[in-house]
């Protein structure tokens, strides 16, 4: 049994490999590939930024899916059409860069014109139209990514004799492309990143015109005479330089192109494309985002703008901008409950914080706020604030009697606003009793060094600002905060119940586990839970609450029409409910009015370790540092019910559903790509065993590499408390160093099994070291300067990446010669499985934890070493 895939000639399998191409794969000839890979990854990242701003960040996942369709199709095309492609290889390599420029610009413009509205996608009557819009996205972006994949496949085939070097340029280009686009984001508005990304493509086009491909050049010089067919197949013991080239493929009778026009065409394409994307760029922020209303009220002004990879920050000044705080609705609680005017800070169109308009703030309103209670229960000599809300929370804490305030503000823009001001918003006035620290919320040991604290107050907007901030609500971190409380200290945790009560219920259980982890035997004695109509506050005391404090809780709530949910000794029947709150699940509805508060029943059940009375439908597993998903409550086993209730699904949960959609599509495409050789009607063949081994090998590499990459990104995100920086840093490091590994792999070309074995041994060994010591290293260095932390991340990822880069190159090198058509196939299989692994890793992490990723990665690399598709010498 044979599987087809290569060029054939009668009974003999022939190859189209030119004789001296290994030597001809010079850096200058590979530079266009480097630049195209650079632009392609930049384009992909720029698209995720576009979707994050124009829609919402969850939809960035879809870009991965769109990318994949084009790349997979190109791999299929290159595999099936190898002969005609190689016949015109020179011309194609010259013409693709200008086409890429045009495809990138037109695709971008079309994408920005699509009237996609994610909110309508969740509406049972409106979703159908949005499917058409999504199809438009695919259509708009398909040409660019198809051409990218085609170009890379072409390079692989043309330079198959030096595959390690070629792959190194591809990877290094992608890695530096990530750095390039992230750098651009510091100076260019996200909607105009495309303008910068066209430049590498143009340079690639010009270079291709000056340094035509060796294949094309050879054809131009001497028609086909220098191109010989490799009859030896892929002798595993023979290097490329030793290949026995005989025969000449009629397929390579190409006409000689003149390449001067290529440079002119590239420049013309660049000018046209730049005009299009710079002057006719219709990209805009979704009109349903929070910024849209305030931006369009009379006399609204954007008074400051900051562009950065983390977001497009805009500071607005208009009459709607006020401090946004949950206040008692009762009149007379404080003399003047009016919330102060402010500037509104938005990131990617989402409201981030209010910034004070002056250095002094009258905090007289704070006595009526839901957040004020902990400051009345404990003498707040030392206060730790997670999130400063632009400085308002520092003013409030000081106004409530705080002696010293430590502020943890991980967001760089917010921290700079506090320290230096932002536009007309003044900096927080320096005071000896206020320290503002650049630490992540999970850097417990580093934060504890400033303790113990009498009040630890987590800001409501702090936990909505980023997922790395939300990790503060994981069991281990909360336990760490509890441990850094003074003996009479109190930790205050916010939860929104405005739409769904389930997150509060999940947090009840999380806090119970955190208390247990910090050595508290009876959590119920250490908790006070109270709420307004829209928010819950959970107060955790280091010591059991004294009776006086509990009386203060009752008085505080009664005066403000807030509702106690739990305190030691609470009698539910005796509590007067001011804010009736029927709870809503996906399958049940609690509709009792005026009876016992459902939240009380939930708190009682949770603290007793009993099942949830009303939220049993949801997954209420407490978040941990290994599974830091404060949201993620949807039980995927109940997908049918979830989809039937799609209108109820909050935005926080949409990422999971989008992951599932992307995964389903990725799996289908990956299967199509993997099984492609089975349906090839003619051409070269691969023995069944080798075909299956190759499939497992390249699939394993695709899945394994991304599993390890996502694991490191996740760890780095919490460590650097900046997911975008972590993503760019880990991605660039891994790609560049994998490129080095790929280059080094050429040394093992004659001993591929040895090379792969060595690489996999390093991968497994390094992973085991990470599993044992990574958390300790990161915790130990959590308070180190940012630049040192960046170097540490590079040092942790680089050796692993060098090893990760070798097996792919060594595997691909097995598909030169008569199996050349399998080369783009193998590349496509690897790419398709990489795309599968992204949503799969996220879903696995949400279900089990991130720890599963390096373990799965180790197993996949064991599979890789067992399935290396080493070609046997042809007899």
């Amino acid at each position: 049994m044979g599987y087809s895939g290569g060029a054939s000639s009668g009974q003999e399998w022939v190859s189209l490999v030119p004789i001296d191409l290994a030597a001809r794969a010079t850096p200058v000839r590979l530079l266009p590939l480097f630049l195209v890979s650079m632009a392609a990854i930049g384009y992909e990242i720029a698209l995720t930024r576009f979707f994050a701003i124009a829609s919402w960040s969850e939809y960035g996942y879809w870009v991965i899916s769109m990318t994949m369709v084009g790349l997979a199709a190109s791999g299929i095309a290159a595999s099936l059409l190898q002969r005609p492609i190689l016949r015109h290889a020179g011309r194609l390599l010259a013409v693709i860069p200008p086409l890429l420029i045009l495809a990138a610009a037109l695709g971008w413009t079309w994408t920005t014109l699509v009237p996609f509205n994610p909110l309508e996608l969740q509406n049972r009557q409106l979703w159908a139209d949005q499917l058409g819009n999504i199809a438009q996205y695919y259509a708009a972006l398909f040409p660019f990514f198809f051409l990218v994949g085609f170009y890379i496949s072409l390079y692989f085939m043309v330079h198959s004799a030096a595959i390690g070097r070629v792959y190194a340029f591809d990877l290094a280009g992608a890695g530096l492309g990530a750095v390039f686009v992230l750098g651009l984001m510091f100076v260019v508005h996200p909607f105009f990143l495309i303008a910068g990304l066209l430049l590498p493509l143009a340079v690639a086009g010009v270079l291709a015109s000056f340094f035509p491909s060796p294949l094309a050049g050879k054809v131009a010089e001497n028609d086909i005479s220098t191109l010989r067919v490799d009859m030896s197949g892929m002798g595993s013991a023979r290097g490329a330089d030793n290949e026995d080239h005989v025969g000449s493929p009629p397929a390579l009778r190409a006409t000689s192109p003149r390449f001067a026009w290529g440079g002119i065409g590239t420049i013309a394409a660049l000018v046209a494309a730049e005009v299009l994307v710079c002057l006719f760029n219709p990209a805009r922020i979704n009109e349903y985002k929070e910024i849209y209303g305030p931006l369009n009220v009379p006399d609204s002004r954007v008074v400051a703008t900051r562009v950065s990879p983390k977001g497009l920050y805009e500071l607005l000044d208009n009459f709607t901008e006020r401090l946004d705080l949950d206040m008692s609705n009762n009149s007379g609680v404080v003399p003047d409950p009016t919330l102060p005017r402010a500037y509104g800070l938005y990131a990617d169109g989402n409201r981030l914080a209010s910034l004070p308009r002056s250095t002094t703030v009258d905090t007289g309103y704070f006595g009526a706020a839901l957040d004020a209670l902990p400051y009345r229960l404990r003498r707040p000599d030392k206060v730790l604030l997670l999130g400063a809300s632009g400085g308002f929370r520092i003013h409030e804490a000081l106004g409530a009697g705080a002696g010293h305030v430590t502020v943890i503000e991980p967001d760089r823009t917010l921290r700079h606003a506090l320290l230096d001001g932002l536009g007309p918003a003044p900096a927080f006035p320096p005071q000896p009793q206020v320290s503002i620290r650049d630490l992540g919320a999970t850097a417990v040991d580093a934060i504890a060094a400033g303790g113990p604290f009498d009040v630890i107050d987590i800001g409501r907007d702090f936990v909505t600002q980023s997922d790395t901030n939300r990790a503060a609500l994981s069991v281990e971190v909360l336990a760490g905060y509890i441990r850094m409380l003074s003996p009479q200290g109190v930790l205050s945790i916010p939860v929104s119940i405005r739409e769904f009560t389930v997150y509060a219920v999940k947090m009840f259980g999380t806090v119970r586990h955190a208390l247990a982890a910090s050595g508290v035997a009876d959590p119920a004695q250490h908790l006070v839970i109270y709420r307004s109509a829209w928010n819950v506050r959970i107060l955790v005391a280091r010591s059991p609450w004294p009776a006086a404090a509990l009386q203060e809780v009752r008085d505080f709530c009664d005066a403000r029409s807030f509702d106690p949910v739990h305190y030691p000794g609470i009698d539910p029947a005796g509590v007067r409910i001011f804010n009736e709150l029927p709870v809503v699940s996906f399958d049940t509805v609690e509709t009792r009015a005026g009876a016992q508060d459902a939240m009380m029943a939930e708190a009682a059940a949770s603290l007793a370790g009993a099942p949830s009375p009303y939220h049993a439908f949801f997954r209420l597993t407490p978040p941990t540092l290994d599974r830091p998903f404060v949201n993620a409550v949807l039980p995927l086993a109940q997908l049918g019910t979830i989809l039937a209730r799609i209108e109820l699904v909050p935005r926080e949960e949409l990422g999971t559903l989008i992951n599932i959609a992307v995964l389903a599509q990725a799996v289908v495409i990956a299967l199509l790509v993997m099984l492609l050789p089975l349906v090839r009607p003619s051409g070269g063949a691969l023995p069944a065993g080798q075909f299956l081994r190759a499939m497992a090998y390249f699939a394993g590499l695709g899945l394994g590499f991304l599993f390890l990459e996502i694991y490191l990104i996740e760890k780095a995100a919490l460590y650097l408390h900046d997911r975008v920086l972590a993503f760019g840093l880990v991605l660039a490091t891994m790609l560049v160093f994998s490129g080095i590994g790929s280059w080094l792999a050429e040394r093992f070309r004659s001993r591929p099994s040895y090379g792969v074995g060595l690489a996999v041994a390093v991968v497994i060994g390094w992973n085991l070291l990470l599993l044992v010591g990574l958390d300790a290293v990161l915790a130990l260095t959590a308070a180190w300067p940012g630049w040192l932390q960046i170097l540490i991340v590079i040092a942790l990822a680089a050796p692993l990446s060098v090893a990760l880069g070798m097996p792919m190159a060594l595997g691909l090198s097995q598909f030169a010669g008569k199996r050349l058509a399998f080369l783009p196939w193998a590349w496509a299989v690897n790419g398709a499985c990489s795309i599968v692994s992204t949503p799969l890793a996220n879903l696995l992490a949400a279900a089990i934890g991130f720890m599963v990723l390096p373990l799965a990665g180790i197993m996949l690399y064991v599979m890789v070493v067992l399935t290396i598709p080493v070609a046997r010498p042809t007899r």
Partner: protein
Amino acid sequence: MTISGRAFPLSRRAALAGAACLALPPPVHAADWTFDAYARAMQASGRATDLTAQTFAAMRQRRGHALQQLETWLRGELGTADPTVMRAIAALPREYFHYDYAAGRSFARDAYDWYPRAWPIGHGSTLSALNVQAYMTQLVQPRPHETALEIGTGSGYQAALLSRLARKTCTIEIIAPLGAAVGRIFGPLGLDNVETQVGDGYDGWPQERDGFDIIVVTCAAQAVPPPLLRQLRPGSGRLVIPVGPPLRTEQFLYLFTRDADGRVRSRRDIGVWFVPMTGRIAGG
């Protein structure tokens, strides 16, 4: 009769209110709402329409059925369809409010399609589904002698509906181009008890010294603006806030009431759209 297990005192008071509602002035064109009347009103309100007499007639033919469907739906889901609310809905040509102000385009032909749905009207605003608006109106039970304030004019339909049921309706739109355009659409319908304003809803409508019996707020903040609560009439005031992303039919409604002593209570109304698919309804 109950809605979601909660007593809904509709019968006698609603019947009296319904009778009184008949005394309210009808819209100018309600009696003979023809294509010409529609076209004149659209022109007078400064909006374009591509509706022809034929498409207008076809659309109006669906109206009776749609209203019947709405009434059946309200009865089925709520136990009753408040006759005063139904009369007010019947008195308003909904197609007149089907307009996209960003695109400058009418989508009147879709006005009476069943199933009711939310419609984008541009500038990040939506025309809510008819059943949601009917439900919310039943929830706040406007009476003819009462005054209503709406924060967030949007399409103007809710303000127009309240104007058919209450003595006076004030409405504020924060988005300048939307507020300016929608402010012109009430006059041509003869809805002269609607007052409009473009501005900040935070401060409410302080010119109304006696406060409001009904306040409807589209609110994204963490708290109801204190000035609004101060303008809610003690003892009888009802303030309702729909919460949830736009364009979803399944929004929550928060109903705030102000006691005579100034204490404010709230109730989350889960609406009829939260009937369980499976499982149980607890309590009751």
